[in-house]
C-alpha cells in the first residue's frame, strides 16, 4: 500500500522523506489503533489506554516525522515544545479523569464487558446521588 503510493511519486525519495514516511505512517497507524480502542474497548478505564496511545505514539511519531521535514530550526523547536507539553499534560489529564470517574461512581474493579453491544448505557451512568 505504502510502496505503491511511493512509486507513483515523481523522482526518487531522499532519506529524509523515507524517515518521514515511516514515522508519519506509523504515527497515523498508532493513532488509528488508539481510536479503535476508544471505540471498542469496554469501560472508561480501558478506553484511557487508547487515548494514551494517541497522545504518545500517535502524536509523537507524527510530530517526529514532521521534524525531519522542517527547514528552519524554529520549526523543530516548536514541534519539540508541543511534544514536551503533551508529554506532561496527557498523564495529568488521564489522572484527573480517572479520579473524577471513580468519584463519579464508575467502579474500576467491575467487569464492564457488555453482553451484546457496547451501545446500551451502563447502569452507573445516571446515578443522581452526587450533589
Amino acid at each position, binding site marked *: 500500500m505504502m510502496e505503491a503510493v511511493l512509486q507513483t511519486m515523481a523522482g526518487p525519495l531522499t532519506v529524509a522523506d523515507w524517515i518521514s514516511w515511516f514515522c508519519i505512517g506509523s504515527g497515523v497507524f498508532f493513532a488509528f489503533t488508539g*481510536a479503535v480502542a*476508544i471505540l471498542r474497548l469496554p469501560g472508561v478505564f480501558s*478506553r484511557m489506554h487508547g487515548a494514551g496511545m494517541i497522545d504518545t505514539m500517535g502524536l509523537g511519531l*507524527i510530530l517526529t516525522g514532521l521534524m525531519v521535514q522542517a527547514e528552519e530550526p524554529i520549526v523543530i523547536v516548536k514541534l519539540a*515544545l508541543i511534544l514536551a507539553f503533551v508529554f506532561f*499534560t496527557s498523564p495529568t489529564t488521564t489522572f484527573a479523569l480517572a479520579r473524577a470517574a471513580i468519584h463519579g461512581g464508575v467502579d474500576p474493579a467491575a467487569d464492564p464487558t457488555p453482553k451484546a453491544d*457496547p451501545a446500551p*448505557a451502563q447502569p452507573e451512568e445516571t446515578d443522581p446521588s452526587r450533589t
Partner: protein
Amino acid sequence: MTLFSAAAVGILATLALVMVRAVAGPTVFDRILAVNAAGTLTVGLIAVYGFLDGRPDFLDIALLYALINFIGTIAVTKYVKFRDLGHPARSPQAEEGDV
C-alpha cells in the same frame, strides 16, 4: 505533497472514529476522554496542515490548541466532579484532592 495529504486524511479518519465515541459514550467520562483525544488529534492535524500548506507558522496555533485543550479538559473534569468551578481547595471532600 503526498506525504502530508495522506497524514491529514489518516488523522481525519481517526478523528471520525473518536467523535463517534464522543457522541455515543455511555458516561460523561467517556465523552470527556473522547473530546480530549479529539483535541490531541486536532493538534496533529493543524501541524500537518501547516506543512501541507507550506506555512509551518501554523505550529503556533497547534501549540496554543494543545494548551487550551489541556486547560479545557481539566476544567470540564473538575466541573463534572464538583459541580462547581469555584470549588475551594480545602473542603469536606479535600482528602480526595482538588482535581
